[in-house]
């Protein structure tokens, strides 16, 4: 099987090129960080503010890990924002309503995320819906179900019984450094291994670059696409766990709009919406870039109307440079 894959006409980015890609995103992050540091030297580059930046990247970062896996397969997952809200509601249902222990609640929530992803994957493969449409539909279904399951009420965690759950986000093993940041790093590490070191990642890239050729080489594309969406769903559920642990409650009406931030983080990180090419570390950096920009613009007290304008402009610039570089690489 492995040799079949290696024989595929897949343009796997060479190692140096991928490194350059990450270097570019990282350089962008650095430039933005330094610019804000110069603008507000006493306020911006401080320990507490840096932890703030990292902390506020956690939820989007988790969602973006899943988004990357899906986008590399030339798909898209619009349901991750409201799927996150539904997962949060399910987590609260498991732990608060049913009274299950925290560890079991977390496992069930992650499994539920995988189930949501499976639904997306089946809609895309078995029903043959375009990913955009399939996940647009599940986005709405999740939004509705979050309200139905919660009966349109936020569900509050008990700071005693679910204390360890809340600790996952706002607790601090290292003083002043919320645990949520470790969760994000762990999630990124898992995503990195899945994407770079397993067969799933290899098939993901292969399906994204050329689905027909992948199928012709004897790979069950449908099965693997379902697995890819299911894996992405686990990260969506993790996002739901992290946001509800932070807020101490599952808020059923949140979530819409988060999917766009996750997609933006993925794209800024150098993953191509055309599929076949992506980077987990790039996505992590992309999420950090969004977080740094949001935080920095607030700290320099730029009127808020302008903050989204700046963020949008950054996406245009980053993706433009990325494409330019790709074209040059092809021309050579």
């Amino acid at each position: 099987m492995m040799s079949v894959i290696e024989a595929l006409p897949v343009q796997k980015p060479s190692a140096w090129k991928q490194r350059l890609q990450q270097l570019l995103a990282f350089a962008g992050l650095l430039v933005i960080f330094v610019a804000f540091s110069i603008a507000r030297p006493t306020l911006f580059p401080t320990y507490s503010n840096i932890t703030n930046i990292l902390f506020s990247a956690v939820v989007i970062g988790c969602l973006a890990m899943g988004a990357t896996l899906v986008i590399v397969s030339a798909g898209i997952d619009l349901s991750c924002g409201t799927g996150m809200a539904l997962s949060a509601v399910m987590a609260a249902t498991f732990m608060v309503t049913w009274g299950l222990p925290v560890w079991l609640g977390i496992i069930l929530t992650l499994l539920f995320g995988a189930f949501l992803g499976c639904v997306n994957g089946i809609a895309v493969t078995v029903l043959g819906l375009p990913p955009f449409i399939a996940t647009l539909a599940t986005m709405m279904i999740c939004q509705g179900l979050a309200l139905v399951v919660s009966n349109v009420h936020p569900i509050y965690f008990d700071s005693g019984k679910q204390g360890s759950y809340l600790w996952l986000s706002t607790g601090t093993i290292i003083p002043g450094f919320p645990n949520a940041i470790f969760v994000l790093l762990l999630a990124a590490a898992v995503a990195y291994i899945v994407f770079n070191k397993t067969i799933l990642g290899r098939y993901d890239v292969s399906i994204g670059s050329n689905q027909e050729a992948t199928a012709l080489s004897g790979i069950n594309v449908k099965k693997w696409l379902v697995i890819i969406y299911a894996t992405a769903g686990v990260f969506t559920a993790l996002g739901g766990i992290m946001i509800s642990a932070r807020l101490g409650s599952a808020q059923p009406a949140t979530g819409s709009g988060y999917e766009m931030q996750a997609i933006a983080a993925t794209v800024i990180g150098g993953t191509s919406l055309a599929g076949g090419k992506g980077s987990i570390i790039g996505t992590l950096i992309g999420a950090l870039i969004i977080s740094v920009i949001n935080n920095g613009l607030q700290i320099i007290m730029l009127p808020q109307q302008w903050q989204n304008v700046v963020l949008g402009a950054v996406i245009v610039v980053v993706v433009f440079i990325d494409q330019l570089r790709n074209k040059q690489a092809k021309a050579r």
Partner: protein
Amino acid sequence: MRKIIAVVAALMVSLSLASCSNDNGGGTSTGGSASGDKPFISIVSKGFQHQFWQAVKSGAEARAAELGVEIEFIGPASESEVEAQMTMLDNALAKKPAAIGFAALDSQAAAGTLTKIKDAGIPVIAFDSGVDSDIPLTTAATDNKVAAKEGAKHMCELIGNKGKVALIVHDQVSKSGTDRRDGFLEGMKEYCPDVTVLEPQYGGGDQAKSADIAKSIMTANPDLSGIFGSNEGSAIGALKGVQEANMAGKIVLIGFDSGKAQLDAIRSGEMNGAITQDPVGMGAAVVQAAVDAIDGKTLPKFIDTGFYWYDKTNIDDPKIAAVLYD
């Protein structure tokens, strides 16, 4: 393939029907029973994002049961979906109700539909937010400007006439957002003119986003003395931000509305107090005004549904407790 789609679609429909019937098992007055001659009132609210609307709904349902009218209570998923709300208003009109209650997300966007409703001879009762139009017969609302100004007065008492104060506002378009912002700013100028008031920031009522904003504001202004959150989501967000920055108790927090997290924080002293509206009374007032309009009674131009300041000292006062919600 087509067969599969049909099966799945049928499954989905039956599932959704099943969940609907479960949901209405509690005996809510929305939809369902096809009782012929009861007047039907459609109430288009601002949605589900805040428990405030559930409290308005319960007040409306209780009064509807008393007066023997049938109501539906609908709204978009979040308070930024102006267009979705316009569609709901159009759909409400299509059902030819005896009256329509409407809480505008945008005070101007509804002008066209309101004219159509007027032409159809259906009375409109505005609630929560005013509409820039003279079509609604009356507006049942909290005077948000006066209410927020009261919040500013307490802010000034708590911090003294010095320091810096920030505002986290839920919306810069809706009238409740702008009125609360402007009322608070006005109050600050009047009661403690020497306090620096920072540029208002908007968090869309999203708790996580508002928390991030609060933390950035505290970082940018280490000498911050107080934060005002203009609705439930903004206030809880400000509270989360302050807690995460380990500044609880060091920054004066004033909120708006209630909800469990806010009530807990006020009881524990992490939040100093909040302004509450009377959502249950507002819901009742909408239905009452609608029924009066159907009966041809003349209505006052504005029905003030009132507000209260509450803090640790009076939170369990029966009069206050009656308008708070979890």
